[in-house]
């Protein structure tokens, strides 16, 4: 355990700790472009040079291991001069097109330029190396080689993380550039991470391009519900619109975020977002839709079946359980989901596409219920007249629904989710709009946080259930999501 001194402060670090990591432990930030904690060390940008006493040359903090007794200076005049020079070298061939660059506001060149400020450019416009400007390089990304500083984070990401090796540096020297095979798309499942880790505006997201200046974005920490992995994310939004999702790196689950997960926010503001009820195929206002559904439930009572959903929060599943047990007093309910879980691509994407299979188990433990097979059997036998189910979960009993054709009352956020043959569909608020508790495949409890407001009149699902109960002649008296959790182990 070597002890070293950084900017006058001593600390003991584990063997093998680099100077950059050690500085980080002390809260000393060392600027960097090529370094990324989850990629191999390249040491090429030379931005992290620091002064180590007794070493003749400045050393790269990213690659130099701490040794006993090292005395390190990260802000000496020599270090500052080196950083200023590196920045100047980086900028001489940079197009300086910040006004039309999406990276502006979160750009390593801009940020450090302010920190180590330079005088006017000593490099005349005419002498710049020109490279290829923007071109689409896959479904999600645009590449602007002229903005690239050749830190090779993107190349290393594709060879080390996705192991797809689409990218390479071609040519050499200041004419080298990032490229991929002609005619081939950069289309692995994780390409948007490249836009994140690109320290400049060379790789930008096609989805996010020109949508919003980053300094207008508000950031809400939340959870990705794209699959059972349950990655921690940040939703970036402004004026009630989400613009992008980015990973919130954490030791437990994720450094990165997959492209499908990144795009899950789209459903929230999609054209087919349900803000009204649907009876058969016709849109009607929410209140009459609720009353119609309640009337059908009231009619059937003990012949109603309720199905939980691994796509819903623990709270909303618990509310469904209460509806069945306390309000309808039916035994026909099921919270039995056992989809196989585990990372299927070696990176993040889970075998289980639903985010809360584990959370539903808590509800099952508290309230019991039928197995999926038994519920299906009862539906198929014709004894169930009305089925309440979240749209995607209805897929678990689709054969039974087809065979017996009971009235299906579905809960859905988007029109595209509505199962064929639904009698009624009731909209509910997305988990980008309301909080909800989820248990990922590791059993880690994670809560979503609202980033935007639900469309007018669209309520959280527990509140929809509460109303259904009231309109069908009973009452759950739920005033909050948490109240539904009575008896559920937290």
């Amino acid at each position, binding site marked *: 355990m070597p002890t070293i001194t950084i900017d006058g402060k001593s600390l003991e670090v584990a063997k093998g700790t680099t100077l950059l990591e050690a500085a980080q432990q002390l809260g000393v930030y060392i600027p960097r472009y090529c370094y990324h904690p989850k990629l191999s060390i390249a040491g090429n940008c030379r931005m992290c040079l620091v002064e180590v006493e007794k070493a003749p040359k400045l050393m790269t903090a990213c690659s130099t291991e701490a040794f006993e007794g090292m005395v390190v200076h990260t802000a000496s005049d020599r270090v500052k001069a080196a950083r200023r020079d590196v920045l100047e070298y980086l900028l001489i061939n940079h197009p300086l097109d910040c006004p039309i660059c999406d990276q502006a506001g979160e750009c390593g060149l801009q940020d450090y330029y302010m920190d180590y400020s330079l005088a006017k450019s000593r490099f005349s416009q005419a002498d710049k190396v020109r490279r290829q400007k923007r071109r689409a390089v896959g479904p999600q990304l645009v590449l602007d080689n002229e903005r690239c500083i050749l830190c090779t984070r993107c*190349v290393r990401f*594709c*060879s080390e993380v996705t192991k797809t*090796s*689409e*990218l*390479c*540096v*071609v*040519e*050499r020297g200041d004419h*080298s550039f990032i*490229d*991929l*095979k*002609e005619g081939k798309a950069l289309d692995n499942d994780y390409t948007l991470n490249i836009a994140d880790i690109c320290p400049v505006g060379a790789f930008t997201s096609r989805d996010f391009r020109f949508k919003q200046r980053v300094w207008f974005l508000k950031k809400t920490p939340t959870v990705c519900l794209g699959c059972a992995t349950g990655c921690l994310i940040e939703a970036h939004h402004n004026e009630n619109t989400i613009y992008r999702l980015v990973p919130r790196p954490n030791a437990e689950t994720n450094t990165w975020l997959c492209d499908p997960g990144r795009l899950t926010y789209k459903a929230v503001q999609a054209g087919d977002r349900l803000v009204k009820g649907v009876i058969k195929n016709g849109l009607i206002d929410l209140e009459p839709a609720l009353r119609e559904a309640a009337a059908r439930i009231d009619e059937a009572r003990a012949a109603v079946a309720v199905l939980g959903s691994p796509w819903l929060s623990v709270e909303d599943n618990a509310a469904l359980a209460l509806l069945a047990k306390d309000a309808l007093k039916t035994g026909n309910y099921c919270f039995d989901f056992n989809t196989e879980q585990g990372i299927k691509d070696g990176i993040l994407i889970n075998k289980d596409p639903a985010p809360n299979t584990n959370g539903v188990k808590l509800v099952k433990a508290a309230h019991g219920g039928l197995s999926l097979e038994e519920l299906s059997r009862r539906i198929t036998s014709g004894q169930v007249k009305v089925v309440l189910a979240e749209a995607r979960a209805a897929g678990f009993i689709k054969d039974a629904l087809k065979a017996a054709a009971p009235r299906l009352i579905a809960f859905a956020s988007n029109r595209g989710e509505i199962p064929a043959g639904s009698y009624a569909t009731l909209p509910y608020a997305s988990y980008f709009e309301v909080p909800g508790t989820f248990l990922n495949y590791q059993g880690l409890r994670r809560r979503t946080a609202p980033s935007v407001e639900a469309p007018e009149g669209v309520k959280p699902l527990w509140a929809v259930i509460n109303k259904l109960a009231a309109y069908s002649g009973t009452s759950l008296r739920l005033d909050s999501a948490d109240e539904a959790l009575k008896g559920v182990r937290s």
Partner: protein
Amino acid sequence: MPFKFTEEFRARAEKICARYPRRDAALIPLLLEMQKEKGYIAEEGLDALALFLQIPYSRVKGVATFYTMFNHEPVGKYHLQVCRNISCHMAGSESLLGRLRGRLGIAEGETTRDGLFTLSAVECLGACGAAPVMQVNEKYFENLDEAKLDALLEELKHGRLPH
């Protein structure tokens, strides 16, 4: 006629791979072998090599474009490569280049219409004591002057690469 990964080539390539504990170390020697066939390395050659060595295409592409001896389009029967680094420069390589441009009617990087000559200016060839130097294909011609250059061009035009 693009490069074909023939059985004969495959056998030769396997022999080269056997020199190394990891077969992908043979990448550069194999690119050189490939270039011997047609004078340049075609795109499908890169694909074939990636497959043969079981490495990503991106690595083959990166290597093939990093090293300057690899041609990516056809070159003439005689590739005239004039050194223009410091010792050759002092010995008059610029005027040799100028003479070649005039005699052949092409600029550096170009090939004569008859496909006989490609002209290139290259960096130090490592024969500075015999400056100025020109490499024709793989052969060095040293201590050149205008008369020697003219005589050499005549030989080459008749299809004779002097020893």
